[in-house]
């Protein structure tokens, strides 16, 4: 099955891009965990290294066999994912008021992260069958809407609004890419406009607070409002060249909340300045462009849409996370791909890269 010719098509460029951003991420994580501690605890850093090792293994696994296999088993992958999301609601462990983690032996995973990939695969399979130049009708959209709504609802229940939102946005991006019929499109826009006030009612207190706080950070002087202000100070104070490795005072002062996960970009921008933050933003842009070019070179609708979905996942998270820490968006718990601390996040992103590599490697086999 594994052909030497495939190796010649191996996407070294994507690998180099991924590993460079991963390496930069580790450097920043090192800063974040040692931030101003009397005696730093490198446990998180070591764990992240292990996750990266595992992530590379998973990535290799994801491109070893033809991505067509993912199309074949799409439904199974999706059902397993929904099953694990249901399981987390019953058996998941509580951390800070929400149930997101499922323990498997010594490891804890967030099924909601994996659900992103499952939704991408199942939607790619569905759209690949229906796609046409006229666009999809409302009736065509019922199934993908349902396929997205189930994991979405389960993740909102945990509650983890950030991840649920990312899933919805990925599905939306994939659907837009597959093209929606003009009439259906107008309908959808109208419905969403009406739906927004309704959704407001279903948001939890703290979720509403976050949105209100975003609009007016002074509302929550001890929480998000404070965090946004401190994060902006951190980023800005990095100026052109940054304060230097391990020299970030905002980071050290622990003015940054969740500095190793959601707010890690602020640590980067503070210590490495525009130089560092711009490099990372441009690396992300390159990865996204690379993903789209893989989609463009693929000669099979499933492969194309799959690549678009994975790229959309990376793009949304980058934009939301960086936008959030710079005060352009509400504070929602979305990680920065390849940089934020978190096993599930790393594994999911590496699966995504593995899928992109898979499509990239097999682009000629189709003919």
């Amino acid at each position, binding site marked *: 099955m594994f052909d030497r010719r495939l190796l010649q098509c191996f996407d070294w460029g994507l690998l180099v891009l991924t590993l460079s951003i991963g390496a930069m991420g580790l450097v920043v994580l090192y800063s974040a965990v040692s931030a101003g501690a009397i005696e730093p605890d490198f446990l998180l850093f070591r764990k992240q290294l292990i996750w990266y090792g595992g992530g590379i293994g998973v990535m290799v696994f994801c491109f070893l066999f033809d991505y067509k296999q993912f199309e074949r088993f799409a439904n199974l992958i999706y059902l397993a994912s929904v099953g694990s999301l249901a399981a987390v609601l019953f058996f998941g462990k509580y951390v800070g008021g929400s149930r997101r983690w499922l323990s498997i032996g010594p490891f804890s995973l967030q099924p909601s992260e994996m659900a992103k990939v499952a939704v991408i695969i199942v939607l790619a399979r569905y759209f690949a069958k229906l796609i046409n130049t006229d666009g999809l009708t409302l009736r065509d959209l019922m199934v993908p809407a349902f396929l997205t709504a189930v994991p979405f609802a389960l993740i909102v229940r945990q509650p983890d609004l950030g991840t649920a939102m990312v899933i919805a946005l990925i599905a939306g991006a994939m659907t837009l890419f597959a093209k929606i019929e003009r009439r259906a499109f107008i309908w959808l826009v109208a419905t969403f406009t009406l739906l927004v006030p309704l959704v407001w009612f279903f948001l939890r207190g703290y979720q509403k607070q976050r949105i209100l706080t975003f609009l007016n950070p002074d509302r929550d002087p001890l929480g998000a409002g404070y965090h946004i202000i401190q994060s902006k100070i*951190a980023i800005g104070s990095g*100026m052109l060249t940054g304060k230097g490795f391990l020299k970030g005072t905002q980071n050290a002062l622990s*003015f940054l909340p969740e500095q190793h996960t959601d707010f890690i970009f602020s640590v980067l921008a503070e210590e490495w300045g525009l130089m560092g933050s711009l490099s990372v933003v441009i690396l992300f842009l390159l990865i996204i*462009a690379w993903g789209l070019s893989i989609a463009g070179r693929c000669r099979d609708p499933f492969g194309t849409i799959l690549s678009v979905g994975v790229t959309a996942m990376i793009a949304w998270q980058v934009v939301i996370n960086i936008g959030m820490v710079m005060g352009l968006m509400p504070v929602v718990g979305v990680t920065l791909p390849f940089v934020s601390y978190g096993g599930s996040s790393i594994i999911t992103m590496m699966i995504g890269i593995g899928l992109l590599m898979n499509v990239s490697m097999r682009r000629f086999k189709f003919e």
Partner: protein
Amino acid sequence: MTNYLDNVDSDWFGKRLSAALTVVIAVFVVLIARLLFLQVIEGEELRRLSEINSIRLKSVEAPRGLIYDTHNRLMADNRPSYDLSIIVKDANPLERTIEKLSRYANIDEAQLWDSLEKAKGTRAYKPVLLKPDIGRDALAAIEVNRWDLPGILVNVSPRRDYIFSPSSAHLLGYMGEISVEELKNKIYSDCKSGDFIGKYGIERTREHWLRGKRGGQQVEVNATGQVVRVLSTVDAIPGHNIVLSIDQSLQLTAEQLLADKSGAAVAVDPSSGQILAMASSPSFDQNAFISGMSHDTWNALISDPLHPLENKAIQAEYPPASTYKIIVAAAGLEEGVIDVNTSFFCPGFLKFGNRTYRCWKKWGHGEVDVLKALTESCDVYFYQVGQELGVDRLAWYARAFGLGEPTGVDLDHESGGLIPTAQWKKNRMGVSWQKGETLSVAIGQGFNLATPLQMALVAAAVGNGGTRYRPMIVKTIRTADGQTIFESVPEVIGRLPVSEKNLRLVREGLFKAVNDRHGTAWGSRLDGVAMCGKTGTAQVVGRRDDEGDGGSEGEPIKDHAWFVAYAPREDPRIAVAVIVEHGEHGSSAAAPVAAEMIRFYLSGGQPKSDAPLAVAPASSAEGD
């Protein structure tokens, strides 16, 4: 159309991808523009802000809800605790600061370094708790020398203070630092490590109401970490106040009566099920838990053979002994095994099979009817009633009186006691029920076990004419500003399966047990109050092998003394159960305690009159 898409020359996907890339680039342009704005245009200003960044967050602890007795006497209060912390970054030089702090505040230097050592990994700008609750003297010394102690902070936080401790210790419970396990629990989701939460008693069962919501402040600090300005405040929300049904005076009375003894006393209001007092002896000092207990104190508490940490009123199970005869008499009457006229002859023993079952009165009670049996607690009479009823019918009645299962009182670790049936024994021990065992059960011995609270509720239900109420301890819950958010109402959970006529007969027997010259509790009768009650003496099965009449080695283990009572005779206002471990006889050890509690309560808290109540002479004490 699909054909077109499958065509290698199709550029449909290509066009859409170009559009997607355009959108992505547009968004990234916005991100990069924002970066430039923050890091280049605003960079200098933000750099300056970061250098003088003196805005810190300070959390403000919420005062915990207070606990009052039924007459609004404060039982659990909050007092200010001065907690000593250090911000390592500001404490420059660290060694000198610690050394001076130790000198000023008179705290062992090694202890301070110890706390710092434990806080390894904490960020240098975060306060590290050095010593909680340093006391006013140390506080004054630190305040005076503040200029000489950079980075040293003293935070004031509310701390629990149990006003009557060790009184009501088992009831109110105590607090302790939240454990790692508890932190994972959803009900503690708003807690953080280091928080104090209720660990036992009302503090634990009503944690949810008592715990307030933490607030906080955004403050500006100066170079040494002292607050110079409060920028904004989110107020802490205090916890809810709880009013208990406990009458603290009665509680103290009961505890004094049990002092130097091991045992428990429970008083309930028969007309509502509200618990008026619940004493367990010996007790412990709750405040010691709050200020941090030494290892030795803790070990002494848990290894004490008298189990001071156990609430004997609900956690300890004892054979109900002769107090159980109330139920046997009611069951016998109700099942028609006996009636008011049925009498047996008591020669002081009953031969059953090849064994002899003794009555506590060696020379016998002579002709005994049900009234006399209750009055004088004749074992032989109840052997025969029990034998005719059989163990399973007896068990059915005992359960209907509320025995054999937890009462559901709002306290933790409640025991259910045990009411044996033939099936139970078969399942448990794999051996069939022996007829002779029914005889033991009929006088409340054998496998029977009950808690003092259960027996107090039996007395309450018999006294009030047969209505069983759920025992209640929380009367009202109010917000800190006095708004009532919970008001308990009596909850009827059942009726005794005994006709009014039969119940009246049983009550007559209980009246005579106290107020008849031959009654077992005659010695504890009260002037002007028609107290009804039943004594009991629970055989203690020792762990020694040579247990028995002729115990030659050492002192025999003394029996547990029981007394259950209610008063007044009609429309009783109080029902009491008292157990005194190894008190020997119910009439001499337990009945005076119960009688004094009842007298005290019904007289509205009058101190005892000069003439002390006669303590029953040993001769009239019942046996078995």
